[in-house]
C-alpha cells in the first residue's frame, strides 16, 4: 500500500514537468530525440551541416511557440518516421515500446514458475538413520566414561 502511494505521488510530481516539456520544449531535449538524417546519430552527437540545419529549424519553431509534438510532426512530415530517435507512442510504434516489457514480464513469470516447480518437486530429506540401540547405549557409556 505504501509503495502504491509512493508511485502515485511520483506520478503527480512528474506529470506537470512532462506537460511543461510538451508545451515549452528545449532545444537540448529535442536534439536528443531527433536523428541527424545523414549521420546515424542524434542531433546532439552531430555537427554535420544537415544536423546544424535541423537544429536551426527546431530553434526557430521553439521560438515561434510550437509544442514538442508539433515540431516532431513537422520533422516527420519532411524526413519520415526515421527522423525520430525513438518510435512514437502510437500505432505500430507501440510494439517497440511494449514488446521488451512483455518479454521481460513473460521471462520473469516463466522463471518464477520454473523455480516454484523445481523447489516443490525436490524430494524431502530422508530422516537421519537411527543407530542400533545396543550401539547407541555403548556409545553413550563410552562418552560418559570419557567425560568422567
Amino acid at each position, binding site marked *: 500500500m505504501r509503495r502504491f502511494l509512493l508511485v502515485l505521488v511520483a506520478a503527480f510530481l512528474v506529470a506537470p514537468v512532462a506537460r511543461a516539456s510538451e508545451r515549452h520544449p528545449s532545444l537540448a531535449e529535442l536534439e536528443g530525440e531527433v536523428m541527424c*538524417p*545523414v549521420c546515424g546519430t542524434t542531433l546532439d552527437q552531430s555537427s*554535420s*551541416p*544537415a544536423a*546544424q*540545419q*535541423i537544429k536551426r*529549424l527546431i530553434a526557430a519553431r521553439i521560438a515561434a511557440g510550437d509544442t514538442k509534438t508539433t515540431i516532431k510532426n513537422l520533422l516527420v*512530415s*519532411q*524526413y*519520415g518516421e*526515421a527522423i525520430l530517435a525513438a518510435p512514437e507512442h502510437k500505432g505500430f510504434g507501440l510494439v517497440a515500446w511494449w514488446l521488451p516489457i512483455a518479454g521481460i514480464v513473460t521471462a520473469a513469470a516463466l522463471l518464477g514458475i520454473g523455480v516454484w516447480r523445481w523447489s516443490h518437486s525436490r524430494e524431502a530429506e530422508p530422516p537421519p538413520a537411527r543407530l542400533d540401540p545396543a550401539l547407541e547405549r555403548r556409545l553413550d557409556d563410552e562418552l560418559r566414561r570419557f567425560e568422567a
Partner: protein
Amino acid sequence: MTRPARLAVQGLAVALVAGLLALLIWRVANDNNKGVGQALSDGHHPTAPAFDLKRLDGRGSIDLASIRGKKPIVLDFWASWCVPCIHESKRLEAARKNYGGKITFIGVDTKDFSGDARKWLRQNGITYPSVHDGSGAVLAKWGGLPIPRIFFIARSGKVVGELITEEDLPRYLKQIAAS
C-alpha cells in the same frame, strides 16, 4: 507439464530460433541491393528505378516511370545543406540552356527540409524542376549518400552512367542526347 507437451514446446522453441537464424542468413546473403551506383560500377546499366515524388514548386508531382523511355533524363540528387551541390547544380542549370529541348533535367532534394530547399533553389537560380525525397528512400535506391550524385538516363530508360569526374559532364550529355 506432460512429456509430449514439454517436447512440443522445446521443439517449437528450437524451430523458432532456427527460423530466425535462417532469416538472418538469407538477409545477409541476399543483400545485393546496393543501388544503381553500385550496378554501374559493376558494369551494368539498370533501368532507372521509378519514383513518384512531389515537386518543390507545388506543381503536382513527377512520376519518373511516366517520363522514362520518352526523353533522356539527367537526375541530380542534392540538398540545401550540401555545399558541393551548389556548384554541380549550377553546372547542370547552365547545361540545360544547351540541351533543355532534348534532355529532361530533374533535381531530387533529399534528406532535406522543403522550406530550406525552396530557398536554396531561389538563391542559386536553379530553374529545372526538383522533387522532395525527405526520407532519402529514393536516394537509397540509387546508392545513398554522399551527394551530390548525378545520373544520366538514356531515352531507353537505362541508366548509362554517373558523374564521377567533372570533365565527364559534356560527354554524358552528348551521349544521352543522341540516344
